[in-house]
């Protein structure tokens, strides 16, 4: 086990929303544009790294019976921090993401990594794991956001990139588009994975 493998496994082999199919709610909800996906991903990464570190440091002191409750309190504290910071400095993004910022608390990825990894491993490994998983999550959200934004509106990060006569598939930025786009993306990832 090396730090590098713990870090990189989150980027492709176990990339959270696609491989483990965990924490789908924000994945579907905020990816109407690449920028929103990126913001949500970074907020989740911050919470993931912080909660992984604290859980790892406290893993010898938390009694086994109440560990889930303890993890949730730790995670919730960091989520409140993110919420307040975003409200103060990134108000526009805060408005767009809305209810999904407090909902990072119940994102299965964060609790899942605390339970499955950080509660059993030392601090450096837990930070590497949290960072890798978080960045994998961010990349996935940004990718899905870009695809939906590109085909749904013809823009990427708010910049018009498609040719002038391009008819956008409007439904991709609406509710059903999220499910369909993610379904196809997962299918294509399986195809690429099968060829290796």
């Amino acid at each position: 086990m090396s730090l590098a493998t713990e870090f990189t496994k989150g980027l492709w082999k176990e990339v959270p929303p696609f491989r483990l199919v965990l924490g789908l709610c924000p994945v579907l909800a905020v990816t109407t544009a690449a920028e929103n996906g990126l913001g949500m991903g970074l907020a989740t990464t911050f919470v993931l790294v912080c909660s992984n570190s604290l859980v790892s440091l406290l893993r010898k002191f938390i009694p086994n019976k109440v560990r889930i409750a303890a993890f949730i309190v730790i995670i919730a504290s960091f989520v409140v921090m993110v919420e307040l910071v975003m409200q103060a400095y990134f108000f526009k993004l805060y408005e767009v993401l809305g209810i999904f910022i407090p909902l990072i608390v119940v994102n299965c990825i964060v609790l899942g990594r605390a339970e499955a990894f950080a509660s059993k491993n030392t601090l450096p490994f837990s930070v590497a794991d949290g960072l890798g998983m978080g960045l994998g999550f961010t990349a996935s959200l940004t990718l899905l956001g870009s695809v939906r934004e590109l085909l749904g509106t013809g823009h990427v990060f708010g910049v018009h990139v498609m040719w002038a006569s391009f008819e956008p598939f409007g439904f991709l930025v609406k509710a059903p588009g999220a499910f369909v786009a993610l379904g196809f993306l997962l299918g294509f990832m399986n195809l690429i994975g099968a060829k290796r």
Partner: protein
Amino acid sequence: MGEYLLLVVSAVFVNNILLARYLGNCPFLGVSKSMDTAVGMGMAVTFVLTVAGLVTWMVQRYLLDPFGLAYLRTIAFILVIAALVQLVEMFLQKSVPALYRALGIFLPLITTNCAVLGVAIINIKEDFDFVTTLVFSLASAIGFALALVLFAGLRERFALMKTAKAFEGMPLGLITAGLLSMAFLGFAGLVK
């Protein structure tokens, strides 16, 4: 009365919590492989979501607001929901064992169902009063159960079909959910 009816239609069909608001998708995709589990999960969520909606509303109104602790909302709500799920579990085990056995594993899982926390937060953000909170929570939960059961029915059929290897399971499940969501989009004109 009319506004409550409108709220119910809007929460069940137009702004369906699963298909339009994207809350609670983990159980939606996780336990929808068979009809039985979908019905069990739907019942458990309906029950907990309604009770949690009311209790968190009271916590916000009588505990957090008077003491100026609104910034602690996320932590307070998740603790309330976790405690509530535990209480409901113990209560059902003692007094309604039949229902407890029917819900089984689904009860503890509900703590991390974001639909519960999501509806609790929406109730506060929309500034609902007590009765509206009750109606909205119950209607959202019914919308959740309806979508879950419909989706499970679709997936039971899909399981019997031959599909492309790469799209088996989750990818096809998601595309199916997309089609279901598209059908629900047809209700959009009902309520402004």
